[in-house]
């Protein structure tokens, strides 16, 4: 069945080269914009992930240093499986650290701290894998809220203001990029659908004849869906090539113009999974677009219905 569909596709392509070339060009254009969007998304996500890795969480213990309670808090932190590099900072260590930092700027302040150390002991840790999504941020907020109720814990800090802003950026960026991808995909769906609809109207007689000789709906429909799948795949593949050429051109240009910025190490081309995603999306979109427009192509009585229309 696929050999027949491929044969049919090649024949159609040869007989209507202009139509196919136009459709393929528009699709390559749309998919290239889409691939560029994926490229931008990938690199922003990479930068955000880098920032997300820098989120540090501190659990401050109550004034009274109780080793049993401190061990209990440590156990809770470890049990969460959420953190890496957990370190304990005693009151004394906190004071030493504080002194080191403040000494340069305000040495007078330190005199009062010699006899009265107000700094609490704490656990400091980083989040395993960093905060990459809004969901992970929410998980952190919930964990911090729960942790504050644990006996011996005075305060949980994760740079709330900064992380909240960062989470908002993640949320807006995720939402915007998906909206953009959705709009581009819908547009492409219509381009493919239009091409297939054109193909169907040019082959209306052929469909009737196929019906009259006993072709099933699937047999009639499949060549159109196949056509869409091939168009989608080819367009996605060529769009990736076009995006790669654009990437090389732009990064080379920036390397020449902005010598201080090592753009090639900071802006990466689409990763293999993203390229695969683009190919799968393009191919599926082609098949889906064709199916949507061709699904009613044959009712088994197309010829009869056409006759009824003519006689009306």
């Amino acid at each position, binding site marked *: 069945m696929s050999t027949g569909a491929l044969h049919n596709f090649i024949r159609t392509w040869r007989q209507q080269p202009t139509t196919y070339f136009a459709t393929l060009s528009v699709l390559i254009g749309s998919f290239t914009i889409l691939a560029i969007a994926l490229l931008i998304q990938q690199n922003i996500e990479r930068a955000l992930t880098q920032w997300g890795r820098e989120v540090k969480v501190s659990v401050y213990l109550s004034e009274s240093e109780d080793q049993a309670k401190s061990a209990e808090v440590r156990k809770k932190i470890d049990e969460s499986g959420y953190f890496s590099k957990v370190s304990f900072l005693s009151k004394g260590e906190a004071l030493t650290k504080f002194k080191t930092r403040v000494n340069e700027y305000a040495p007078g302040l330190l005199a009062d701290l010699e006899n009265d150390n107000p700094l609490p002991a704490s656990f400091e840790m980083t989040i395993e894998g960093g905060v990459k999504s809004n969901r992970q941020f929410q998980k952190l907020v919930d964990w911090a809220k729960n942790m504050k109720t644990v006996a011996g814990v005075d305060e949980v800090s994760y740079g709330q203001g900064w992380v909240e802003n960062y989470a908002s950026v993640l949320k807006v960026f995720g939402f915007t990029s998906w909206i953009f991808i959705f709009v581009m995909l819908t547009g492409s769906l219509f381009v493919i659908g239009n091409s297939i609809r054109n193909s169907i109207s040019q082959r209306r007689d*052929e469909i009737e004849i196929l019906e*009259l000789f*006993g*072709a099933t709906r699937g047999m009639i429909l499949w060549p159109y869906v196949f056509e869409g799948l091939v168009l989608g795949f080819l367009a996605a593949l060529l769009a990736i090539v076009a995006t790669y050429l654009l990437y090389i051109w732009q990064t080379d240009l920036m390397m020449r113009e902005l010598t201080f910025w090592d753009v090639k190490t900071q802006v990466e081309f689409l990763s293999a999974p993203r390229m695969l995603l683009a190919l799968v999306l393009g191919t599926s979109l082609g098949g889906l677009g064709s199916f949507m427009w061709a699904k009613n192509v044959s009712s*088994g009585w197309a*010829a*009869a219905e056409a*006759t009824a229309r003519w006689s*009306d």
Partner: protein
Amino acid sequence: MIEFMHAYKVYQGAVPVHALKNINLTIDKGEFVFLTGPSGSGKTTLFRLLSAYDRPSSGSIKVLNFSLNDLNAVQVPTFRRHIGVIYQDFRLLKRRTVFENVALPLEVRGDRPRQIREQVEKIIDQVGLFHKRDDYPDHLSGGEQQRVAIARALVHKPGVLIADEPTGNLDPHLAKEIISLLDKVNAQGTTVFIATHDHELVKAYSRRTIQIADGQIVKSS
């Protein structure tokens, strides 16, 4: 084999056209029957109903073991694979070669490529078009297109062969050859039902003849 019972066909419109009126007809398995009548008498409409190309407005039609009134979307293709139809306007696929056109019923049936090639080449040879098997219909004369249509209708050895003016575009010599070919097919057990207004041809073959006029059967011998 073929049975019409009180079949009517009305084309709706500003003025409804009663194309067929109360058709009652039975054709047994293995018969060779001519359907004659002037242009516009209802021959083509009758054949359209017979090939499930169209549905009757009322009455019932049975062909082979299929009740055409009750065919659903899944059964229609199955029925059509059991019959062979030669259309007056040939209905050839312009984007396919002679070979590919003739192969269509076998492809649709899911035959193997080797089997298809053997059967198609054999029938194309029988209708005298072997040398044109790779040509496209637009490059053929009317008579040649007619022969391609005939080969396509016969290639899958149908139980019933319905032909609407199969010799209409052929010279008398070729027309006789084609009817002889259909005669051979009939001798092998296929029921053949031919619409024609070629009275000479009908006379030459003394077979059962049904005459239709103004949408009604007026004579059945």
